[in-house]
């Protein structure tokens, strides 16, 4: 077989690579609509509802202990909550696992200061149309969803901080 015989298949492969590169997904989007209300049990033992937090900037973070990027994100989220919670900001970690044992074990090793809620039957995940893990939703003081982040990549926390500050100013 000579080299020229391979140029056509190689060209097809190159075209295919191009097609694959083009079909990557977008990671964040901006929307503005009322955030669906919900009530969930928290790890502390009480129940937390979104209504109670009107007037504050709320960051909902949907996570699971089996999700690598979620675990990477956790310490950064904890820092954010500690830094801004006195300024009218609160972070709610919504754990989406049906069995909370693994989450409890993870949190014992890596404690966080923000409330962790358990969405065992995926009611809230469905309500918020969670389509990536982790998913982060920013809700403003009026109760509207303002920013939505799908997934987490190192560096995203910079964008989170900007958006928190912007929403706190309102």
């Amino acid at each position: 077989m000579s080299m020229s015989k391979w140029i056509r298949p190689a060209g097809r492969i190159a075209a295919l690579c191009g097609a694959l590169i083009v079909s990557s997904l977008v990671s964040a989007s901006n929307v503005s609509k009322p955030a669906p209300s919900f009530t969930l049990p928290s790890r502390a033992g009480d129940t937390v509802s979104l209504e109670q937090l009107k007037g504050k900037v709320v960051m909902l973070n949907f996570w699971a202990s089996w999700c690598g990027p979620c675990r990477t994100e956790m310490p950064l989220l904890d820092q954010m909550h500690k830094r801004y919670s006195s300024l009218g900001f609160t972070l709610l970690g919504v754990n989406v696992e049906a069995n909370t044992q693994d989450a409890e074990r993870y949190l014992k090793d890596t404690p966080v200061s923000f409330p962790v809620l358990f969405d065992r039957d995926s009611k809230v995940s469905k309500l918020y149309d969670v389509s990536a893990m982790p998913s982060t939703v920013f809700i403003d003081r009026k109760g509207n969803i303002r920013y939505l982040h799908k997934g987490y990549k190192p560096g995203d926390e910079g964008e989170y901080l900007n958006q928190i500050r912007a929403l706190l100013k309102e």
Partner: protein
Amino acid sequence: MTEAIAVKAMLAIALLCGLSACGNIEPWVKPYERQQLADPIMAADPHPISSAYMDHVFEAREGARGALGSGGGGCGCN
């Protein structure tokens, strides 16, 4: 002739990728339902150093070869 088959298979896959760009098939397993699939015991190749070795133990002694890859699955994060 089999080269032509291989290229046709790849073009078919390219078509599939093109479909994913336009059509929006709703995933029937939600990202928050992937706990079992993300479990380490469900990993397609949990010990790559071992599977590579066994693959060659067999390939060296048998006439057959190929089609041993695996990928995907897992947590579906990001």
